[in-house]
């Protein structure tokens, strides 16, 4: 099917199947799972993922055509965004065949929800200094520790967990990746309220949680290289807007603003032109990265540049919209107030803007690294987190 036909068919399907807002029956998770199952059965979930594990085995061309068709809809798939954008691709890249067989299809069909467990209270930007321990116990591992900023964990069935398995080697060399059952006894999920007043992320406590060794992803003490895979997918999926829906319902979009602000004022017109320029510049960059991927050139660390630019654009756009709207935007639960309150999230989650700049500098421009005082020191001798 050519891309135009594919897009038309996808659009038809979405029109018939995307639930309208009024239809919510009070359980958004059940609704999301129901929608995801239909999306999968219609062939629109995992479009580019390998057929062998439940994907469609198609190309970026179909993926883009679907994204174009979906731009005018808000798909209720937010709870699957971590699985689809980050943990799923990591398992496809680095998991065992048994793990792919077990986890990928249920993820694509929306039967199971995933979260990602990397950050800790003492390990944010410097995530490799994390302290959560996994200790070998026969065929199992026993996990103790605390994670934080974990999106959708309150709904999650499975988590991709990065834990320390060796404290006698430098920090990057003693980490291992696991799949953890979020329903296992000893896993406690507590919601955290963010600055917008919502509770989209959580803190997680692990008390003697058992993980079978067959749920280890990658080699023992090689978790950092797996984590890098996940983080690359994370940045790409954020910049490509996986699971985020379009700009359709964004009250700070150019289309919304032109209806609500006085465009006869030349100063307002110029501000909107600037918004258009920046939005198009980034959209075209993302499209170019997608076309390069299609041609076999993996964007790698350049995805961090796209993520950085999106974070900046998001905050700029919300800031601009409230300036144009004026005093009404900061009272009475105005939608632009909400947009402004959620805007900083993107500049922090998935790596801060400063970390993105480090990555672009180090891995795209190959600039000399910052001197590292902790690179060769055994983890147990470092001053990190609660470790004196």
């Amino acid at each position, binding site marked *: 099917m050519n891309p135009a036909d594919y897009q038309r068919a996808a659009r038809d399907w979405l029109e018939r199947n995307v639930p309208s807002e009024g239809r919510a029956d009070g359980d958004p998770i059940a609704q999301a799972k129901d929608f995801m199952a239909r999306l999968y059965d219609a062939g629109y979930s995992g479009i580019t993922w390998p057929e062998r594990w439940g994907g469609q085995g198609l190309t970026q061309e179909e993926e883009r055509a679907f994204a174009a068709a979906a731009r005018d809809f808000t798909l209720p798939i937010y709870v699957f965004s971590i699985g689809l954008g980050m943990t799923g691709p990591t398992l496809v890249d680095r998991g065992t065949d048994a793990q792919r067989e077990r986890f990928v299809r249920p993820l694509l069909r929306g039967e199971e929800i995933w979260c990602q467990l990397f950050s800790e209270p003492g390990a944010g930007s410097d995530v490799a200094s994390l302290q959560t321990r996994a200790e070998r116990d026969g065929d199992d591992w026993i996990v103790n520790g605390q994670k934080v900023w974990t999106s959708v964990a309150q709904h999650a069935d499975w988590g991709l967990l990065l834990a320390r398995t060796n404290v006698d080697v430098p920090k990057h060399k003693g980490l291992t990746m696991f799949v953890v059952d979020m329903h296992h006894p000893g896993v406690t999920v507590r919601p955290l309220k963010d600055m917008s007043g919502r509770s989209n992320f959580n803190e997680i406590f692990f008390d003697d949680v058992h993980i079978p060794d067959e749920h280890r992803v990658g080699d023992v003490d090689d978790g950092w290289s797996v984590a890098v895979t996940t983080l690359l997918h994370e940045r790409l999926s954020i910049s490509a807007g996986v699971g985020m829906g379009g700009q359709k319902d964004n009250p700070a979009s150019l289309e919304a603003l032109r209806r609500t602000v006085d465009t006869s004022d030349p100063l307002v017109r110029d501000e909107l032109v600037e918004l258009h320029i920046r939005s*198009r510049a980034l959209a075209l960059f993302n499209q170019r990265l997608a076309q390069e991927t299609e041609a076999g050139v993996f964007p790698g660390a350049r995805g961090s*540049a796209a993520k950085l630019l999106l974070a900046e654009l998001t905050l700029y756009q919300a800031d601009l919209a409230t300036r144009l709207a004026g005093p009404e935007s900061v009272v009475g639960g105005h939608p632009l107030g909400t947009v402004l309150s959620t805007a900083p999230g993107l500049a922090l989650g998935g790596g801060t803007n400063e970390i*993105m700049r480090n990555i672009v500098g180090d891995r795209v421009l190959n600039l000399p690294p910052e001197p590292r005082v902790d690179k060769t020191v055994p983890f147990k001798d470092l001053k990190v987190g609660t470790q004196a």
Partner: protein
Amino acid sequence: MKLVPSQEQRELRAAVRDFLAAASPPAKARQGHDPEVYARLNGELGLSGLIVPEEYGGAGAGFAELAVALEETGAVLLPGPFLATVFAAVALTRAPDKELLAGIAEGRVAATLALPGADVTADDTGRLSGTLPQVLSGMEADVLLVTAGSALHAVDLTAEGVTRTPLETLDITRGQARVVLDGAPARTLGEPADGIADRLAVALAAEQLGVLRAALDAIVGYAKIRVAFGRYIGSYQGVKHKLADMHGKLEQAESIVRYAAWAADEAPDELPGAAALAQAYVGRACFEVARDSLLLHGGIGYTWEHDAHLYFKRAKTDEVLLGPPRLHRARIADLLEL
């Protein structure tokens, strides 16, 4: 939409880059136009005939190819009438003239184009009069294309009735001239087609992309060898983070140039918006990157002997070449029907 260069376009880039690295490196740019290099550029590589249709002896290539070539000539700040001749060829391919196009394709004729809005009138015998205060490469070009009334005319710049005065230009690598026409003989070429200004904007943006990339490459290279306080300056976040932001501008500028070149070749409906976007974004980004490249070099970047100011001044000259940049922004506002 095609945003990634084809294998053939990459080969063209490599050929132009290799040629210019040997024949016209940036260090040579301050010596100005070298007719011998220019002749080889057109003879060995056929660059002047790149977008000239095959029936007139050119390569019949599109803007996607032209953009790749202009990026490379921009990156070395190639002096001389190449961009001016491209501008003229763009106007001519929209209002074909066999003699001129063949001359450009063979590299015999360097041409330039008076920018829209020139105050030039034709008398009953077709002779032209008027003053063009700034003509790109006006001293190096053989022929001037200018719109008078509703028609495009070709003026032999060595003819009687033409007075050319070189201007002192901020950008010492590429000249401009004041041209006074006083009953100058001219050939009428017909009505200029629509869309010429948009195509000029795209071609210029391709050159700007090359200038931007080279200015960034220069400071990235320097940040890897210059040491301060016992460390390479590129290891400091104060420098590294700026360079990362400059890289983001490069990525977006390149994406826009590929898109605008594609629109010029394949999507006339999208060309006006793409062309205005190209000038509004790439023109600004090019100057900002050239500026920050100069600043991050430290004191050496402020010296006459260093090339940083050449990029800085080319970037500024290019940014205002087609008029004050607010015109491109106003065009976007109009196209968006704001």
